[in-house]
């Protein structure tokens, strides 16, 4: 096609056009000219692009190989769109082999190593399409425990949209044979690149008041090991509480206003199935894996559950969508 060679397009035109492209094309068009290369890497462009890909209403998921299902670590991850495989992503060799996904925000998948003894100790934030990652090995915990004690990490990941920051919550509990011995809670801010320890927690009442009112004092009265932090429901902080007592309904707690402890709301889910592994999907759906390893979708607002009969669960999965988050960043290991 012959184009008008007198026409001049200011940079803002290319900026706007590129902001509507899928990540792969954005990356490719960095070689159009120097100014495109510069603006594509700018935080302003990355966030404009992000606001546009969030509009995509399809359900995406990333399926990671699960060693417990006989899958090998070197198998690629699969990207599913509406539960059909779209393409595959190679698992970077520098990552731990046995990994468990925690959650995903803005196209960034958070996962941890899955070794029994250190699960939750090392955390990764990964943008699979860009092959960019940040590895977090640091901690603020100072619990000393004897080798005879059992310990457990709980980790949550979310995006704090008020401060434009990615955050992690980690809870470490040390158990003696009979009881929980010690418990510490810390919050990581990617902007600050460090963990901040919350005032020490008494157990079992769940969380104490802190300057970051994550969970209201005494509002959730269940022992720690019974909930899964699976943080995000319609873009707000949420967690799933599954009482050990099988006769009690499980519920989803949603913090409707970020950082305001008084806005925690409980949504009780009545299903026969107990969730083993819960993830939030788009809109008002959550997806969970039942004891019999079938997948089910529960509409929280309508409180209806249906099984995903034709979806074979052959890996560890996490909700996901393609973005250019971390595009301007270098790979990092925070120790």
């Amino acid at each position: 096609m012959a184009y008008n060679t007198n026409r001049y397009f200011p940079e803002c035109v290319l900026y706007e056009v590129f902001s509507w492209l899928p990540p792969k094309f954005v990356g490719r068009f960095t070689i159009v000219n120097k100014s495109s290369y510069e603006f594509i890497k700018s935080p302003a462009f990355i966030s404009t692009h992000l606001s546009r890909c969030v509009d995509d209403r399809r359900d995406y998921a990333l399926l990671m190989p699960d060693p417990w299902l006989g899958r090998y670590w070197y198998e690629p991850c699969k990207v599913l769109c509406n539960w059909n495989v779209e393409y595959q992503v190679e698992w970077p060799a520098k990552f731990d082999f046995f990994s468990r996904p925690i959650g995903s925000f803005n196209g960034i998948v958070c996962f941890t190593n899955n070794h029994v003894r250190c699960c939750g100790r090392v955390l990764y934030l990964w943008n699979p399409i860009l092959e960019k990652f940040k590895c977090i090995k640091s901690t603020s915990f100072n619990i000393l425990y004897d080798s005879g004690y059992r310990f457990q990490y709980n980790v949550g990941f979310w995006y704090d949209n008020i401060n434009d920051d990615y955050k992690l919550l980690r809870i470490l509990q040390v158990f003696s044979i009979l009881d929980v011995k010690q418990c510490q809670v810390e919050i990581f801010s990617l902007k600050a690149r460090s963990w901040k320890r919350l005032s020490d927690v008494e157990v079992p009442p769940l969380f104490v008041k802190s300057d970051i009112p994550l969970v209201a004092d005494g509002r959730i009265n269940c022992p720690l090991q019974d909930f899964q932090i699976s943080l995000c429901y319609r873009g707000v902080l949420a967690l799933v509480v599954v009482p050990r007592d099988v006769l009690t309904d499980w519920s989803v707690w949603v913090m409707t206003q970020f950082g305001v402890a008084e806005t925690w709301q409980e949504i009780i889910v009545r299903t026969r199935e107990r969730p083993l592994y819960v993830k939030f999907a788009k809109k008002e759906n959550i997806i969970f894996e039942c004891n019999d390893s079938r997948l089910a979708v529960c509409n929280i607002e309508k409180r209806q559950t249906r099984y995903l009969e034709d979806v074979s669960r052959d890996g560890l999965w996490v909700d996901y969508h393609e973005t250019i988050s971390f595009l301007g960043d270098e790979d990092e290991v925070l120790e």
Partner: protein
Amino acid sequence: MSSSTELTEKKVFLLKSLDGVIFEVEESVAVQLEVIRELIEGDCARPFISLYNVTSEILALVIEYCKHHAETCSGGTSATIADEDLKTFDNEFMNVDENILLELCSAADYLDIKSLFELTCRTLASLIKDRTIIEVRKMFNVENDFSVVEEKAVRKEFAWAFK
């Protein structure tokens, strides 16, 4: 001092295109062109506004677009019906030759019409997905200012996109 007759009668403005054609537009249409709104507010819109960057062919299209949007938004229809109507209109409106689309985009930028600018850019984005880099450069009339070595370095930096 403005008399009462002036208040009730519809204000019209005259827009002059690059090739000298004069278009008469109502205020509701004219204010959608951010550039012109500023001129109106500054009372610099008389006797007519010269638009040096837009040809009559493109200006006619732009006015058609603004007219439709002004009418749909001011009409008594409910918001959802108006939304649907605008979507259909926009889709049909974008069904034009690539060169016209580029002209429209450039005009929307120059005249500062946000919705039309976004619409044309979105359409262009879906067009360039299957174009080569060289074609995209030609389309937007930009020069490759990378040296061979520099381009190689960028390709390496964004290796994931060129797989």
